[in-house]
């Protein structure tokens, strides 16, 4: 029972969706299951939120390292939860859109979310520099090819790239950086993308079949578990 029912559920739900692809009256099933998923995800968030609260409370009560910051996390969490769920300061009252502009909830988004998120993302610029440096030093053939292609693409997108090879005679204009850029993107790059995409398609099909047929059952757990 512990394992049979989950297996049957996976099997029936999965193959029903596959069959529904071929039947116009049933093809809405995919959309409906997506709604089911969002509803289940909300219930799961109670577990996730509960976990966040528990972990931080334990940290505080046991005075673990950096316990002071756990207080900050908890205060931030409950503060936003309260202004959001009770729609505090929402001009539309309890029926108003939760993230309507002008609400404290929206302000949190604008002044905390956006700057921190964008800054975290912009760290990428520094990390790209260090990754490129390392790729430069890697002395294997693959890394070299990767780096040459990357350099051509980067140069091709700048005026500097155009200047660099402007001296090449017209009869050999294929070797000018902007043309190489275009050529790389439309031929070898496209070829690699295709091989990867076809491979992924086959990988997903084979993996999905393993799961639906119960060959792969790690999500089902173990009896008595």
């Amino acid at each position: 029972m512990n394992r049979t029912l989950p297996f049957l559920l996976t099997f029936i739900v999965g193959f029903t969706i596959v069959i529904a692809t071929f039947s116009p009256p049933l093809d809405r099933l995919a959309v409906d299951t997506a709604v089911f998923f969002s509803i289940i995800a909300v219930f799961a968030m109670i577990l996730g939120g509960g976990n966040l609260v528990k972990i931080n409370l334990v940290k505080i009560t046991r005075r673990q390292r950096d316990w002071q910051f756990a207080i900050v996390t908890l205060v931030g969490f409950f503060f936003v939860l309260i202004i959001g769920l009770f729609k505090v300061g929402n001009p539309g009252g309890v029926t108003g859109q939760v993230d309507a502009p002008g609400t404290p909830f929206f302000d949190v988004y604008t002044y905390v979310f956006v700057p921190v998120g964008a800054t975290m993302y912009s760290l990428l610029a520094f990390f790209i520099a260090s990754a490129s440096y390392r790729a430069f030093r890697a002395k294997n053939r693959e890394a070299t090819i990767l780096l040459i292609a990357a350099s051509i693409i980067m140069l091709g997108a700048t005026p500097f790239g155009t200047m660099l090879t402007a001296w090449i005679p017209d009869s050999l204009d294929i070797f000018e950086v902007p043309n190489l850029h275009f050529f790389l993107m439309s031929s070898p790059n496209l070829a690699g993308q295709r091989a990867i995409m076809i491979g992924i398609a086959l990988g997903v099909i084979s993996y999905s079949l393993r799961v639906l047929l119960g060959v792969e059952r790690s999500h089902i757990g173990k009896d008595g578990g």
Partner: protein
Amino acid sequence: MSLDIGVWIGALLTLGIFSFLYRDNPFYKLCESIFVGVSAGYWFCVFFFDNMVRKFYFGVFPSEAGIEPKYFLIVGAVLGALMLTRLIPSIGWISRWPLSFIVGATAGLYMMLFFVSNGLNQVADTMLPLYRETAGGDFDPAETLGTILVFIGTFTGLIYFFFSKEHKGLFGGAARVGIFFLMVTFGAAFGYTVMSRMSLLIGRMDFLFRDWLGLLG
């Protein structure tokens, strides 16, 4: 310099995150803790109102007359409620049911999605002649070379992904050509992303120097 408290909070948080590039420090920990707590609460609220209220509640009890109630959504809520059995260890295993439902649905959905968009259509798009002509009917060397490379790259790339044959001899040689194409593809993606990500950093600098400090016009 800005007098808006919101901009000040944003600027201090931005600096706090940047300080991590030097080393881990209490300022970064503070920003991290604020961000984690606030964002978890934020998404909880957004998902609650969007999924539970708009999709579920108004799906089952439509607010406007003439819309059919979707009673089947109650099954989704029951499955969701079963997730909460995890809170009681002795019956926690029941949560495998909604998980199995999701796993089945995802596997079924993606199988068809990838088969069509990533598989079949890509094969169809590769069937092009290896001899190309210009619009005027003359031999087009650049187009021809391009098509030949797409063909060779796709073909040898697929050889690289073969699992049930050892990469040795001619087959191994073809697989190495395949890796070459894959590396060019990765290089192209790398270069492309580098160019677009630099603008992110420029955007943050613009916020600090223009919006906060008012140093730029």
